[in-house]
């Protein structure tokens, strides 16, 4: 088992990073009832861990016995029927799904599928916990229509169903949905907290860690606990016992992106642009999200540029990322950014060095 899963806190009491939030959540569900919840925060900050621990707190161990279901839904939308296939994780008490998987048809998922599930209340002999929990991932990726439909569902079936929403950026969740939930902000763990967790793991695994090693991992992890733990395990696999100046391997794709960055710094020509296109395609077919590629590319470029150029490049990165969101084909926009960078940089070089 990966360390990320092995050392994931299973109950609210064992949560170490967001202790305060965990205690608050515990208080919240102690009265056999809870409001709708909205967890938001950057990835790798522990939203999912908190949710799973919360479910365990509410329903006991049975919440952990989940099974993966692939279900096909037939939805009657006026004139036509729409067939959707949806993967969900379900236990006896909760269902977890990612409605944004359905793309532009997510509205139907919310209106039909979620409504259907919300309507049916679970039968419980003890007469308490008379509600089931729906965990919805990536709510920020839902379309506006879907979010609007969600709000009526939230109110209408609040007696039999609680929603736990999970997303990265709360700006993209409409105010109406946000104001119906108790918002829980899960911030990224600080470097010290990451170091603490890494030390805990090394103690449990009885590893000898040279001083300064965990600090370096934490610094490289970009405040994402998941990445830190993964990197730690990779180091363990690569070389043990650890040495003082052992390199912490960055992710493959990151190396690749910094390769692209130095490529376009070296030469600005249509030929180089064509070569870079191949590399970007390579990244895209390996399922690296385009906005992450663009962001990484930007940060790599920013490391090498003069400060006057930084402003300009930063602006164009934002510009093309926005266009990418409105458009369909990510490759066009990443390439446009690369071309724009080349032209600006070349102009700058000519102006400075003649």
């Amino acid at each position, binding site marked *: 088992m990966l360390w990320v899963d092995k050392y994931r806190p299973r109950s609210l009491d064992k949560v170490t990073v967001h202790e305060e939030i965990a205690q*608050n959540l515990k*208080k*919240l569900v102690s*009265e056999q*009832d809870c*409001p709708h919840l909205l967890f*938001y*925060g*950057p990835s790798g*900050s522990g939203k999912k861990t908190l949710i799973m621990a919360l479910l365990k707190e509410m329903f006991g161990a049975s919440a952990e016995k989940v099974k993966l279901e692939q279900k096909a839904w037939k939805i009657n939308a006026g004139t036509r029927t729409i067939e959707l296939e949806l993967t969900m994780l379900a236990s006896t008490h909760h269902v977890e799904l990612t409605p944004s998987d359905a793309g532009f048809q997510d509205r139907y998922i919310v209106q039909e599928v979620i409504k259907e599930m919300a309507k049916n*209340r679970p039968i419980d002999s003890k007469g308490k916990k*008379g509600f089931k929990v729906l965990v919805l991932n990536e709510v920020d990726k839902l379309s506006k229509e879907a979010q*609007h*439909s969600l*709000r*009526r569902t939230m109110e209408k079936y*609040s*007696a*039999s169903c609680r929603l736990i929403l999970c997303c990265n*950026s*709360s*700006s*993209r969740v409409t*105010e*109406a949905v946000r*104001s119906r939930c*108790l*918002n829980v*902000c*899960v*911030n*990224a763990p600080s470097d010290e907290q990451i170091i603490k967790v890494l030390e805990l793991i090394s103690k449990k695994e009885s590893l000898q860690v040279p001083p300064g090693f965990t600090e370096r991992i934490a610094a490289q992890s970009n*405040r994402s606990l998941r990445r830190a733990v993964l990197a730690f395990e990779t180091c363990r696999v690569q070389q043990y016992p650890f040495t003082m100046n052992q390199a912490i391997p960055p992710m493959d794709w990151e190396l690749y992106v910094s390769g692209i960055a130095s490529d376009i710094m070296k030469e600005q020509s249509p030929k180089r642009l064509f070569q870079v296109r191949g590399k970007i395609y390579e990244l895209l077919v390996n399922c690296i999200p385009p*906005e992450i590629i*663009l*962001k990484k590319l*930007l940060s790599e470029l*920013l490391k090498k540029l003069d*400060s*006057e*150029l*930084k*402003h*300009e490049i*930063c*602006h164009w*990165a*934002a*510009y093309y*990322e*926005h266009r990418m*969101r*409105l458009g369909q084909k990510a490759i066009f926009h990443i390439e446009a950014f690369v071309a724009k960078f080349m032209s*600006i940089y070349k*102009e*700058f070089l*000519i*102006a*400075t060095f003649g």
Partner: protein
Amino acid sequence: MAPLIPSSQPWVEKYRPKQVKDVAHQEEVIRVLTNTLETANCPHMLFYGPPGTGKTTTALAIAHQLFGPELYKSRVLELNASDDRGINVVRTKIKDFAAVAVGSGNRQSGYPCPPFKIIILDEADSMTEDAQNALRRTMETYSKVTRFFFICNYISRIIEPLASRCAKFRFKPLPEEVMSSRILHICNEEGLNLDREALSTLNSISEGDLRRAITYLQSTARLYGSSLSSKDLISISGVIPQDTVQTLFAACKSGEFDAANKEAGNVIAEGYPVSQMLYRLLEVIVSSDDISDLQKARICKRLAEADKCLIDGADEYLQLMDVVSHTMRALCDMPQDMKFH
């Protein structure tokens, strides 16, 4: 449906005024509507104003007071943004409902029961222009038996022909005293302990929106028990602390790109919503005296663009960085565009 557990009912619903005269701080509207109750006659109405000022409450209250619980179902049609309100619905559902004639009601029940029905269109500004256009003639044709209540936040998004057919009422944001008295009333009922400082914090974070204030109050009461401090309220509301805004602004002023980049990264890592950050930055920039008007204009222009991009779903970090870099250039009087010649 199972009976609602009493504690789970939102206080916003629990303390919603049931009668028109209980609605806080909107004297003109109330005067007109009380008159309506006496004469049992009213024009089409258009309520507009910021969220949480009582528009929906007023509309629902007048409908209830006019018809009473028995007739309410058959006389009032309520549609809001979560219902499908495309042009088809206007042509079928609304028109069908509007066309039905009603008798002048029996007055035995103690309610005025005027001889018309009411259609409440909540959040009317999210209706498409086509759908609004389709309503025009419907409103006039059936004006004998149907009254329309439009409720919206932005009157500019209601097409002129509709607006001119209605009596318009603007709902004012609630001033602090009115908010405080309502909040204290709820605290009394729920047995909460709210000190003066917490009350003023609640006032400032809710920005005249009573619904938001009550929601915060309830969430905080759930988490922290019956005695609330202003710190608890802030942590629940997810408001960005003033220090964070100031640090970011200071980084912009310093003119050092990398420092600003780091601060922006921090804002994202702490999970603060960037749309709110932009708003807070705007406040700081507009209110500070040592920035020239031209600089302010430059920054504001970019802020507006970034806000639009965020609504389109653009990446938060990149947009924030762009704003920060523009702000920095404006503050340090660097040129807006690169010129190499």
